[in-house]
Structures are given as structure tokens and as C-alpha cells.
């Protein structure tokens, strides 16, 4: 059969992300793929240099539309380290609470996208229905569904009383039932497995070579999780498991992500149960002492790393962001080699692309 070049993206129903692929297809087989990035490159790193530390929080919140909170958290941690601020434990707990809620939100959203791409609209609708619980909690907590604007340099700007905490705990119970039910579906539903097993396989060696992070790495058997490995407060006081799978295919990634969502529900509950009393923020100076800092956090998609250099003014001299999507993008040509045309959407959604993150 003759070769066809199938363009996918930057706008395509397969891929709701501004990323362009040119797939060379023989019949139903993909033989070659070429990728083009940069459709949503906004020059955020450059913009950061022209704005104050305070303004940058809101700019960096918009790096990603899903894991917005973890970006500002990582940035604030870097700036706080430069300023030598010691954060009150309540602030750390509240930050972690939102990080975990965001992780559930991200994984539910991802499950919906995957289900949609394999033509399983019911799971798509259910996953997004249950994600709505998380969004409600976050909206109630912070005033925004995805752009929370919770972090300030020196802490957080939200607080919650006991009544609010009990409401959240109740909502978490409901959420846990739903997420565990979804986990059961992912584990047992056979048509879903038929479409995701053995697709987009990355071996442990591949993952290490390409320095892949997050659920994609964990689904290939690499046990990394910065929450645990970096011993960040308050995660060092929490009990949770880091799900790891060794199949390395999309199904393993699905399992890892949904299990992580379950673990995150447990984590949220622990955070709320052990929420220390006290202030939620400390006063931060406007001018940050000169120096440089590197901070890392575990975003829903994996390691986020920020490098911030200050020259002593109220503007950062350099902010470098590395988002986890960039690490999985580099594996895509490997994953796309010799798959069926029908599986392209599964492979692409399997790594949980966020092109806005990658392009910045």
C-alpha cells in the first residue's frame, strides 16, 4: 500500500494540544513521525525577568492550566529559600493539600481524555463528573477552579476553619468511593485493556536514558517520587505509597495514575487531620537578596524544576522552568514507531501531554 503522510495537529480532534505531528502511514502502520513544538511558546521565562517577584506568581500560575498550583509552589519555595524565609507549618500543609487535590484533578482529567480517545465516552463522562468534586473543593478553598492564586511568597493566602475542614472531609469520602470504583473499572474492563495494553511501551532502560519522570517513569518500573525522595515538608510526616508498575505500556500508566489519585485522597485526609494551628504566612521582603536557588517538586506529571537567580532587586534575574512534559515528549518518536494509526491517539494521551507546559 502506498505511503500517506497524515498531519496531526496543531488543531486536530485526536490531540487537543497545540502540537504538530506528521505521521508517515503505510496502511494502518505508522512508520515515521516528525514532531513540531512551539505553537504556544509564550516566552514566559523571558517575561519573568521583566516583572516583580509578586507579579511572577500569577504569571507562572499560567504556565500550565492543570498543574498551576505546583508551579507557583515550586517558584515560591525557590524565592523563599533565597530570602531565607522559614514557613509556618500550616502554610506548608495547605500548599500540600492543594498540590494533592490538583494531582487527583489532573489524573481524573487525564483518564477522561484517554477514555475519550479510545472511544469510551462513558468513562470519560464519569471521570470528569468525579473530577468536579475536586474542582468544587478547590473552588471553595481558593476562589478559582484551576487558577487558585493561593501562594504568596512566604506562605499561602487562604485559611480554613473546622467547619470547612469537615465539609472537605465529607467530599473526600465521596471522592474516594468514586475514584476507587474507577480504579476497579480500569483494572477489570476488558475493552479498555484491549486498547491500552502493549501500546506505547517504554522499557526501564529507555526511561533512564531519556531521564523521564513522573507516572510515565513509574509505570516503567522506575521508583522515583520527589515528594518522598526530596523529603519535603509536610510529606515526610505522611504515610502513602508510590504506585509503581513494570509493564511500561499505557495501561500501566493508567493504573499508576488512578492508584496515585487514590493515594492522594488518603494524603489529603492525612493533611487535613494533622493540620497544625498557627499563621499561614510570614512577611516577605520585596527585594530578594542576590543568589541562586534550585527547587524541585512532584507535579501530577512528574518532576518540576525551577532555577531562580536573583540580583538583589525586586525582579528575578533569571527564572528557568523545566516541566515534566518535555521529558516525555522526547520519547514519543520511539513510542510512535510501528504502532497502528488507531493507537496514535492512545500513545499520545498515554504520556499526558501538556504542551502549554512544555512550550512555556
Amino acid at each position, binding site marked *: 500500500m502506498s505511503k500517506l503522510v497524515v498531519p496531526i495537529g496543531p488543531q486536530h480532534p485526536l490531540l487537543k494540544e497545540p502540537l504538530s505531528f506528521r505521521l508517515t502511514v503505510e496502511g494502518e502502520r505508522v512508520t515515521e513521525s516528525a514532531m513540531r513544538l512551539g505553537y504556544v511558546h509564550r516566552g514566559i521565562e523571558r517575561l519573568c525577568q521583566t*516583572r*516583580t517577584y*509578586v*507579579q*511572577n*506568581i*500569577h*504569571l507562572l*500560575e*499560567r504556565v500550565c492550566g492543570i498543574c498551576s498550583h505546583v508551579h507557583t509552589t515550586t517558584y515560591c519555595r525557590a524565592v523563599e529559600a533565597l530570602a531565607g524565609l522559614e514557613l509556618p507549618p500550616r502554610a506548608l500543609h495547605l500548599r500540600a493539600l492543594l498540590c494533592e487535590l490538583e494531582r487527583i484533578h489532573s489524573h481524573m482529567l487525564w483518564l477522561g481524555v484517554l477514555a475519550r480517545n479510545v472511544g469510551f465516552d*462513558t468513562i470519560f463522562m*464519569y471521570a470528569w*463528573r468525579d473530577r*468536579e468534586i475536586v474542582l*468544587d473543593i478547590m*473552588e*471553595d*478553598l*481558593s*476562589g*478559582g477552579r484551576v*487558577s487558585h*492564586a493561593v501562594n*504568596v511568597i512566604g506562605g499561602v*493566602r487562604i485559611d480554613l476553619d473546622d467547619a470547612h475542614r469537615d465539609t472537605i472531609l465529607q467530599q473526600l469520602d465521596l471522592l474516594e468511593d468514586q475514584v476507587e*470504583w474507577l480504579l*476497579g*473499572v480500569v483494572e*477489570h*474492563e*476488558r*475493552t479498555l485493556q484491549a486498547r491500552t495494553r502493549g501500546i506505547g511501551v517504554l522499557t526501564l532502560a529507555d526511561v533512564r536514558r531519556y531521564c523521564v519522570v513522573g507516572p510515565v517513569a513509574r509505570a516503567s518500573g522506575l521508583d522515583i517520587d520527589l515528594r518522598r525522595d526530596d523529603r519535603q515538608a509536610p510529606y515526610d510526616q505522611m504515610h502513602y505509597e508510590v504506585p509503581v508498575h513494570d509493564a511500561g505500556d499505557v495501561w500501566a500508566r493508567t493504573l499508576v495514575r488512578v492508584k496515585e489519585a487514590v493515594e492522594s485522597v488518603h494524603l489529603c485526609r492525612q493533611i487535613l487531620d494533622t493540620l497544625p494551628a498557627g499563621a499561614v504566612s510570614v512577611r516577605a521582603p520585596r527585594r530578594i537578596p542576590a543568589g541562586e536557588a534550585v527547587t524541585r517538586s512532584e507535579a501530577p506529571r512528574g518532576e518540576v524544576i525551577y532555577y531562580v537567580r536573583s540580583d538583589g532587586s525586586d525582579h528575578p534575574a533569571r527564572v528557568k522552568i523545566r516541566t515534566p512534559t518535555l521529558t516525555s515528549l522526547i520519547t514519543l518518536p520511539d513510542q510512535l514507531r510501528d504502532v497502528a494509526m488507531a493507537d496514535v491517539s492512545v500513545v499520545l494521551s498515554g504520556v499526558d501531554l501538556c504542551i502549554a507546559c512544555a512550550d512555556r
Partner: protein
Amino acid sequence: MKEAFRSIACLVPQVFRALFRGPQTVAFPFGRANIPEGYRGRLRIHADQCRGCGLCVRDCPASALELQREGRGRFRLLYYPHRCAYCGQCELSCTSKALYHDNSFVGGVASLDELVTVMVEREG
């Protein structure tokens, strides 16, 4: 065989329950939307509390606020809703607690006149 049964059993009860439970979504403009108290909606101001210090303007990441000083004690605070990112930084920066977000869900403006809103106009 057992696996095949579980495969069907995991989804069917939920689907049938859903059939009789009724929709969980709301047809938005007609249905009742659940908007929490603390939702960051439109930006409002207690005009009498504003002192024209300009802290909100300094911290606004989207340049949505503008302070026009016209001599001693005379100033105008302008707000450009189309630039606003609804981040609430101005609310946080405001030391006299004049600026605040209400929880109205529809943030956009309906007419050209509203593209520039005069929040405060103080005549000396």
C-alpha cells in the same frame, strides 16, 4: 470467564443507576449554578476606603489597573476588565481593604463603555 464477567459487572450497575438517577450536569444559563461564597468574580471597590496609594497598580500582573494622579488628593483609579486575570493580587495588596472580588460568575463586560471602569474618582 470469571474475568469476562467482572469486566461487565464493573460498569453495568453504575450505568443503570445513572439511567434512573437523572443528570448531574446543569444547563448553565437556565439551571442553578453552584458558585461558592469565596469565588473570585468581578472586581469591586469600596470607593470611600480607597486612599489612592497605588499598591494595587504596582502589583497587578496584568496591568489592569491604572492610577491617574491629578495633584494633591485628586486621583482616579481606572480598571480595565478585559485585561484582568482575576488573580486577586490587588485585593491582597490593598492595605485599606477597599478592593474585593464578589462572586458573580459572569465576569465579562457587555458594552464598550465598561471596557474602562472608573473605580474611584476623588476630587481633592
